[in-house]
């Protein structure tokens, strides 16, 4: 489904990704782990097409098409979804209005008819249950005044509505308490299908107790320095990152 080959990217002239290669197949869950500043979030942003990041080399193929050649909205219309680490506030725009607009754009791109507000509400009531959110939040402005946990749940709600082929969760666990973490993970698991795939970007292993990955990759200095199965995440949790960095010949620096 997704093939990243020797991808390099920079932001503001500083190279962050130094040749990433990764293949994700339908039905798989991949975890991208790594210390702070390793380039995890950059990879997520580059895949979604954030304009601040410049791709300087390599290729990304998504379902046979050149992903890097697509505008961000076209990527979204093709089924790429990014759950933001810091969801953005859009004051004055209700969640319901925003979600329906997005849902209809993606339907239009697929050649399907737009859905009217009433039918959309029916669809929503089902999706809201998945993330244990109240219907009242549909009338609230997008993320404005939401708590950290509500914002993250709202991301998963959007994911549930838009039903992406490839979902990238960028540090979705950060700032979540145990209950919110459980709700978010439950949502992600419920949306899993043999035809879609998930990339979970995280610093900690704890989310991976709930969302079990098929593959775990360690990112450092803009490269994947180690890949393994779900047990790799447990090992990282127990031993930290230093041993992997040393194995890869990277200076470990002064970690706290």
């Amino acid at each position, binding site marked *: 489904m997704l093939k990243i080959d020797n991808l390099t990217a920079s932001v503001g002239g500083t190279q962050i990704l130094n040749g990433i290669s990764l293949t994700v197949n339908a039905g798989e869950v991949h975890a991208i782990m790594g210390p702070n500043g390793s380039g995890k979030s950059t990879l997520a942003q580059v895949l*979604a*097409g*954030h*304009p*601040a990041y410049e791709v300087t080399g390599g290729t990304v193929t998504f379902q046979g098409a050149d992903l890097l050649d697509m*505008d*961000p*909205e076209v*990527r*979204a*219309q093709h089924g790429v*979804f*990014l759950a*933001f680490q810091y*969801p*953005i506030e*859009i*004051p*004055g*725009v209700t969640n319901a*209005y*925003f979600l329906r*607009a*997005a849902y209809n*754009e*993606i339907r239009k*791109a697929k050649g399907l008819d737009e859905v009217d507000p009433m039918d959309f509400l029916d669809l929503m009531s089902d999706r809201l249950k998945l993330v244990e959110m109240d219907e009242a939040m549909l009338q609230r*402005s*997008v993320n404005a005044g939401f708590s950290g946990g509500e914002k993250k749940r709202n991301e998963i709600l*959007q994911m549930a509505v*838009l039903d992406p082929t490839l979902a990238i969760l960028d540090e979705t666990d950060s700032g979540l308490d145990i209950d919110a973490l459980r709700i978010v993970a439950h949502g992600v698991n419920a949306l899993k299908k043999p035809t879609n795939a998930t990339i979970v970007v995280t610093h900690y292993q704890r989310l991976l107790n709930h969302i079990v990955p098929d593959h775990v990759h360690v990112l450092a200095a803009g490269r994947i320095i180690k890949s393994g199965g779900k047990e790799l995440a447990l090992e990282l949790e127990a031993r930290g990152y230093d041993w992997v960095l040393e194995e890869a010949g990277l200076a470990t620096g002064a970690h706290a």
Partner: protein
Amino acid sequence: MSTDIEALVNREYQYGFVSDIAADTVAPGLSEDVVALISRKKDEPQWLLDWRLKAYRRWLTMKEPHWPNVTYPPIDYQGTSYYSAPKSVKPLQSLDEVDPELLRTYEKLGIPLNEQKMLSGVAVDAIFDSVSVGTTMKTELRKHGVIFCSFTEAVHEFPDLVQKYLGSVVPYSDNFFAALNSAVFSDGSFCYVPKGVRCPMELSTYFRINAAETGQFERTLLVADEGAYVSYLEGCTAPKRSTNQLHAAVVELVALDGATIKYSTVQNWYAGDKDGVGGIYNFVTKRGKAMKGSKISWTQVETGSAITWKYPSVILQGDDSTGEFYSVAVVNNRQQADTGTKMIHVGRNTKSTIVSKGISAGRGQNSYRGKVHVLPKAEHARNYTQCDSMLVGNACGAHTFPYIEVENKTATLEHEASTSKIGEDQIFYLKQRGLSAEQAVSMIVSGFCREVFKELPMEFALEAQQLLGITLEGSVG
């Protein structure tokens, strides 16, 4: 980066066409003779001619105001024509007699004057180059005692009402442009809602400038008698021309005891091209007088004009009266706007609310200028002002000039202000959900303006939202 924002603010003005209609246009220039000629063409009574002449003489002694935060080359008042009317417009018995080209013009604008096709529940008066070309739903309104007609018609049919209220809120000596308007105004709308009547439908006036080198000087007078209610909307468009055209209108509202007037404007005059060539100078005086227990609410969505200079105001004359001002002003490219309101608290327990949303894009300059004045006898006056600016791109400007004058210690005034910049991150977030940059900007800006849009009648709120999107097209940069 940010080519998105840039690509968005520059859509073509879609109302810029010119209609080929034979017009009766007075040669450029202004003198007592021209004032008298206009009055004669309209077969006006002597008192009105006298009033016009007094205004003209006063205007000669006045200076064009230069305190607004806008710049433009000197206006040649002798180079403008002060009267243009579609030929053969005189006494129309029905809309069937209207020049079909005119009807087509309004259909192009999406304003069908044909009564069968009328939006149900809205009565429209259409003003074409200063002259009213037809008022719809007149008969239906008369059943309720509501008078809604062209100003010229009102002068002939209801001279007492016109004479009683004309200039009672905006005297001819009020300011330079109001004096000019008083001298040369050619038509406009008149509305009177009798005591205790709730006007059964929205009233709407649609203004269109067609002729070149012509100023448009219309006058609107709206009187809501005791306990009456009326909701009124005006819309405006003009063809694209490379020269600037002056539009100096006056709107007077009178809300007698316990009456409510809701006055909404969607202003989309031609704004000039992206380099600032052409466009309308929209120098307008709008004011309402609110008597005891009455309420006047102004809502404006200002997206057009090269320069906008207007301050819809309320004189809170009577005790317990309420004034409101909800405004969205958008400038893009080289547009300039200096707009806001004045709330003059005269009576006791008077209350005013000001919500202003300014959006600046391109190289546009947007100024909010507002005055809250609490006079000595205005015990327990209250004002709440919220003034928000949004910047799109790096080359535009937002300015705020609030004036507060309080002469009574019991007054309570609140003022909130904010400035924000439409962010690349906000746009990216929405694009990541499948929306185009255009939809993203439009959505963010509509959200920003929501408090104002919700004051507009439903169908006009949608129109305003679309208009906003169009104005900002190409602005994402």
